[in-house]
């Protein structure tokens, strides 16, 4: 459904490289996640695929159409929700929807089944101007507008940034339902935990793809044994982190919520707990654990 071949993009006359030889593809009906921090190149990639920006080199297609030659066809068959709210602030919810529907020669009624679940949540406020909506409602309106012409592909650029845990879960539930209706979704996020909700993901940093695979495969490819370290003592996670990092056999150690994730040089893992006990963390315990996508991302950043 989407293919990218050696896409390269620079800004400032070549001084800033936004994307370096990016190649991957997204299959039909896939929920594909582009996972990486701000500045990784996610938005540039979205803008190239939605025909709003020209790449310096390389080719890309969306739904079989070339992003340069066939830009008009692409614009008719994709929905795009940019990271920055881009609807008309001084039009109401209803006016925004009617506006986008008429541009695509359709009506809200025509594809109502697709947006029903989302639209019903904002319908009570349909006479309110978009500029006066809360963040969560803006996000839902944006999604409705992006879906109004029943696109084949939906591009969502950081839809959950700054959104609380409850709304994020709701949003991903909506995406799952849309996927079932046969819409291919490319979604970007800086939240690593959302990677698990995608069929496949690309990890991206500084304009380069670090890895493309299913979340499970990426986790399986973590090359080392990972350990989780815990201590319930009130001295806190930071002392535990500092003590663990001072252990001679440690290769890497990062805080993950209430525990530490660590890898070791050679076979020095078993010496850590006695070492921590000697440092005063007498209840410290350690077990082997399965890495998360975030562990994999941190590992790939080091390479």
């Amino acid at each position, binding site marked *: 459904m989407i293919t990218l071949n050696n896409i390269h993009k620079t800004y400032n006359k070549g001084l800033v490289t936004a994307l370096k030889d990016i190649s991957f593809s997204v299959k039909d009906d896939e929920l594909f996640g582009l996972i990486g*921090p*701000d500045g990784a190149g996610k938005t540039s990639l979205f803008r190239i695929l939605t025909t709003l920006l020209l790449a310096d080199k390389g080719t890309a297609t969306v739904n079989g159409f070339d992003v340069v030659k066939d830009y008009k066809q692409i614009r008719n068959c994709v929905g795009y929700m940019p990271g920055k709210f881009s609807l008309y602030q001084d039009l109401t919810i209803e006016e925004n929807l009617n506006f986008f529907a008429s541009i695509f020669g359709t009506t809200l009624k025509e594809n109502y089944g697709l947006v029903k679940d989302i639209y019903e949540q904002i319908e009570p406020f349909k006479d309110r101007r978009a500029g006066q909506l809360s963040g969560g409602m803006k996000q839902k309106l944006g999604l409705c507008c992006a879906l109004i012409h029943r696109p084949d592909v939906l591009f969502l650029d950081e839809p959950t940034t700054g959104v609380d*845990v*409850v709304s994020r879960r709701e949003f991903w539930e909506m995406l799952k339902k849309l996927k079932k209706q046969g819409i291919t979704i490319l979604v970007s996020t800086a939240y690593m935990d959302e990677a698990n909700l995608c069929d496949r993901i690309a990890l991206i940093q500084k304009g380069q793809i670090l890895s493309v695979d299913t979340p499970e495969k990426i986790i399986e490819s973590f090359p080392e044994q990972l350990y989780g370290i815990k201590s319930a003592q009130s001295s806190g996670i930071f002392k535990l982190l500092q003590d663990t990092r001072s252990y001679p056999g440690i290769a890497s150690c990062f805080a993950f*919520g209430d525990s530490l994730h660590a890898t070791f040089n050679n076979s020095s893992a078993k010496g850590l707990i006695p070492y921590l006990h000697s440092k005063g963390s007498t209840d410290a315990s350690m077990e082997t654990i399965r890495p998360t996508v975030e562990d994999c991302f*941190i590992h790939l*950043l080091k390479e």
Partner: protein
Amino acid sequence: MQPVIITEKLTKRFGNFIAANELTFEVYKGEIFGFLGANGAGKTTAMRMLCGLLTPSSGKATIAGFDVYKQTEKIKQKIGYMSQKFSLYDDLTVSENIRFYAGIYGMSYQQIRDKTKELLEELQLQSEAKTLVRELPLGWKQKLAFSVSIAHDPDIVFLDEPTGGVDPVARRQFWDLIYHAADRGVTIFVTTHYMDEAEYCNRVSIMVDGVIVALDSPSNLKKKYAAANMEDVFYELARKATRKGD
């Protein structure tokens, strides 16, 4: 433990709407206090009252010993503030930003010179002193913004979603800075949507529909709600919210 933030039934109404409803809590010196809540729960309103930017409708609060009704200018000198959305000036250099903020807080030229040197060394940014902030990677920008926000040695620093969008390593380096500041006795008052970061706080409060519904250490909250992690605690409490939005 010495309280540096004390609130008693602190309330803010906008017409009939109660944005923050009878907030009563204390935050101690050197504590890392996580101030959590869903979008629209009233966190921003509460923070603006604590920073002396918004007059409460009723209730009491003192920040670093100063009253939120009468001594707002005193409060502003005793606190630092940083948010992800706005912190530094993109079109000033690194050292110009430090000079600007330190100058606003009335530091002398000598103090500013010393502080600039100290900060640049601590962040290992010496070679970037004359770089425009817009050219720094986001992770560095946020670390610099935090250091600038505590350059005038405030008693309390308010961090409003400081780590949004940064990569996982930079996010953890940012928390290293937070811990160092707390070790030196600076009180950290932080909001975040990353629930793993809630675990790094000494205590957290969770606000739902204008009310603080839970306040305790992360480990006690997890026990109380029989939850595996703070995300589940938060979800359990915040999904009952009836307010939607920011």
